[in-house]
């Protein structure tokens, strides 16, 4: 029933929205002020697409009736990931995990390698995993994805329950979810993330009832339920398949890249005036012939391991010839010296260089080819060992700081199915201060944009159109920071300068705009079934600097390899007084809005502005200020006090 009415409202939203935006583009633009008129209509179009994607999401709202009986012999590993969290908290979670009823092994994945935690694990009979010796200092660690990938190599349960260090699971979490895996195509069951240290007013917008509700249920309907990193159960087979496919793909890509680079490197080495010896030229000819042959073999689909092995053998032989020539020349020089009888050349006559010395001098690290660094580098890259990673098989995607989203998308692209189980089965701890919350939101947004830029869902092979749009919808919402700036600028410009981005505020405008706005709000109300969505709406606008920063840093990271400035979200409250500096851009914008409202009213009174335009824009300013007012409460929030407000566990 909910679904029917939701669909009705979605249709109405799309119709009224298109009606409004078409009129805006075709008949309402004030071209004299195109510099604000165009950005505003683009921002409005952005928002309409956002709402339409939301409508599409909830269109297929899937309300599941619970999982069937799980197979009692399913083996499960419960992973608790930690890096630097408080040991008491980690242990509390681990002991709760130990009490989960379905048979399982509980492991603490300690990326901080803390001896105290190891001792606690031994004391309580918990499994303890740290990074293996393969993760040397010079290799990328891939944060949580790396931690999980490492643990996957030393455990063997069919299914994995992944929990963040603060997520205390219910004893029945597996009984309620494992049954979904009776369907052999299901690779993921995600349950909500709910926080027990958040007051009902939720000043930091920690609970995400719209996401862990209609949005995930809608994505589930499109077989695109997201993996959110914690409180989720995964099928090991699917993860391993992902790792293997990824390994093969990465290897072929890097070999093709190396072969392409080899041509340029050899050409460069030939040109360089340093290389005049015919011997060197001979080696270069041999290397070139070997790489050319390898290219043909790769194109013909020959196994990569054989191809790279042959290249290496051929190059090694060429290098050995070179070393032998060097040694032969040296030996000839020694003979000549001896023949001169001018001085001793050693007690036992001319020393002879042994064959194994020649071999040693030909090995990779001492090879004369090392002098041609670019050629050597290219040859080093011609390997199937994936020596730039700690382990060749990386089941969890490492292309993004939100490894969960990237991993699930790859699973979906390989045809696996996912489930969103709408029942709180674990209770976590949300950030209790604005700074930590902002760090967390920034990280989520950065990770999402990284995935968009590295593996754009719209062009990924294997995904269905619905799945593409479900992933894209979430990425699209993170672009809202740019639209927000325009939404703030437009009323300020009108109230201060009297410049209106629309040609006139007339009946034409209201008759199109108001129905759209009303139906739009109705959509959230119907789809949300009474859950509080206002806090989420406030933060999606008020955190505009965070969203913009996420887009710019992620783009710089993906395109120019610059660091993200990534930080682990601290689980403990950050000390110190109210930190207004965290919201400086928002304070500046709010002051500008308020000043603009006052100036606008003065202009109205003095007859410089017209009543309708002023009224609409002042109302707009008031709305913006009400939205931003949440930040004042967020800055002043002193953390959760359980005595004052008991946790209502029923609320979601």
């Amino acid at each position, binding site marked *: 029933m909910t679904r029917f009415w939701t669909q009705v409202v979605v249709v109405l939203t799309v119709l009224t929205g298109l009606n409004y935006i078409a009129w805006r583009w075709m008949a309402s633009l004030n071209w004299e002020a195109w510099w604000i008129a165009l950005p505003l209509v683009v921002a409005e179009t952005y928002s309409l697409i956002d709402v339409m994607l939301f409508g599409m999401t909830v269109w297929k709202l899937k309300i599941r009736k619970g999982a069937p009986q799980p197979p009692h012999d399913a083996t499960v590993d419960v992973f608790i990931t930690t890096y630097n969290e408080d040991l008491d908290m980690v242990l509390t979670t681990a002991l709760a995990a130990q009490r989960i009823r379905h048979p399982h092994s509980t492991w603490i994945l300690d990326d901080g390698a803390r001896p105290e935690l190891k001792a606690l694990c031994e004391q309580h009979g918990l499994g303890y995993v740290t990074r293996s010796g393969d993760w040397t200092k010079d290799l990328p660690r891939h944060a949580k994805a790396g931690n999980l990938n490492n643990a996957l190599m030393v455990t063997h349960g069919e299914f994995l329950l992944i929990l963040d260090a603060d997520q205390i699971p219910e004893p029945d979490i597996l009984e309620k979810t494992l049954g979904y895996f009776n369907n052999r195509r299901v690779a993921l069951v995600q349950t909500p993330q709910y926080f027990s240290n958040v007051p009902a007013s939720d000043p930091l917008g920690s609970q995400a009832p719209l996401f862990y509700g209609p949005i995930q249920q809608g994505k589930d309907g499109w077989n695109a339920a997201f993996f959110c990193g914690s409180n989720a159960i995964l099928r090991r087979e699917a993860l391993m398949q992902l790792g293997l496919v990824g390994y093969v793909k990465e290897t072929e890509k890097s070999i093709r890249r190396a072969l392409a680079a080899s041509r340029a490197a050899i050409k460069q080495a030939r040109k360089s005036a340093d290389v005049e010896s015919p011997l060197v030229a001979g080696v270069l000819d041999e290397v070139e012939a070997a790489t050319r042959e390898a290219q043909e073999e790769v194109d013909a689909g020959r196994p990569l391991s054989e191809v790279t092995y042959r290249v290496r053998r051929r190059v090694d032989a060429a290098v050995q010839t070179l070393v032998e020539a060097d040694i032969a020349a040296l030996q000839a020089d020694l003979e000549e010296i001896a023949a001169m009888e001018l001085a001793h050349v050693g007690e036992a006559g001319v020393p*002879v260089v042994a064959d194994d010395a020649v071999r040693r001098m030909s090995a990779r690290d001492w090879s004369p080819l090392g002098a041609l660094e670019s050629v050597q580098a290219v040859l080093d890259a011609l390997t199937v060992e994936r020596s730039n990673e700690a382990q060749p098989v990386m089941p969890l995607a490492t292309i993004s700081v939100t490894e969960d989203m990237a991993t699930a998308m790859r699973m979906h692209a390989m045809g696996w199915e996912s489930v969103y189980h709408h029942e709180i089965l674990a209770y976590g701890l949300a950030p209790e201060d604005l700074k930590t919350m902002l760090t967390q939101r920034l990280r989520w947004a950065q990770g999402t944009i990284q995935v968009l830029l590295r593996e754009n869902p719209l062009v990924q092979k294997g995904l269905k159109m619905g799945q593409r749009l479900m992933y894209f919808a979430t990425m699209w919402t993170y672009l809202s920071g740019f639209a927000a700036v325009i939404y703030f600028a437009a009323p300020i410009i009108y109230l201060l300068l009297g410049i209106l981005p629309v040609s006139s505020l007339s009946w034409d405008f209201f008759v199109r705009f108001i129905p759209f706005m009303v139906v739009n709000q109705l959509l959230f109300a119907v789809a949300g079934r009474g859950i509080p969505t206002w806090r989420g709406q406030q933060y999606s606008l008020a955190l505009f600097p965070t969203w913009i920063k996420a887009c710019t840093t992620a783009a710089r990271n993906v395109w120019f390899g610059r660091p993200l400035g990534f930080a682990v979200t601290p689980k403990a409250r950050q000390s110190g007084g109210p930190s207004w500096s965290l919201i400086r851009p928002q304070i500046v914008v709010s002051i500008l809005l308020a000043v603009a409202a006052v100036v606008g009213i003065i202009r109205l009174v003095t007859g410089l502005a017209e009543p309708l335009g002023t009224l609409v824009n002042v109302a707009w300013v008031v709305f913006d200020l009400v939205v931003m007012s949440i930040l004042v409460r967020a800055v002043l929030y002193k953390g959760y006090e359980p005595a004052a407000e008991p946790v209502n566990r029923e609320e979601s």
Partner: protein
Amino acid sequence: MEFSYEVKDSYAEVKADGRLNMVSAPKLREFVTDVIAGGSNRIVVNLENTAFMDSSGLGALIGCLKAARQAGGDLRIAAVQPQVNMVLKLTSMDKVLTAYPTAEEAFSND
């Protein structure tokens, strides 16, 4: 790789800084040949800053030794670094080219 030399009382000291490899070896030969042509036939190659040597580098050193002997002098090496030392030992060239701790000591007894 950078080469420099300095004429001392009884010998000329050649410094070879960097990696003595396939690319730089021919340059060392040329450089030492020029030093010998300039009138010094007692040469000390100071390898203090030579971190690496491959077979071509070794060949060049022996080539320079030959040139020095042909000019009626000798070539000695000093301040050998670990990798170079390993190469010399492995190829038995340590029997031909004695390594002295410092350039000053190389010709101190003759």
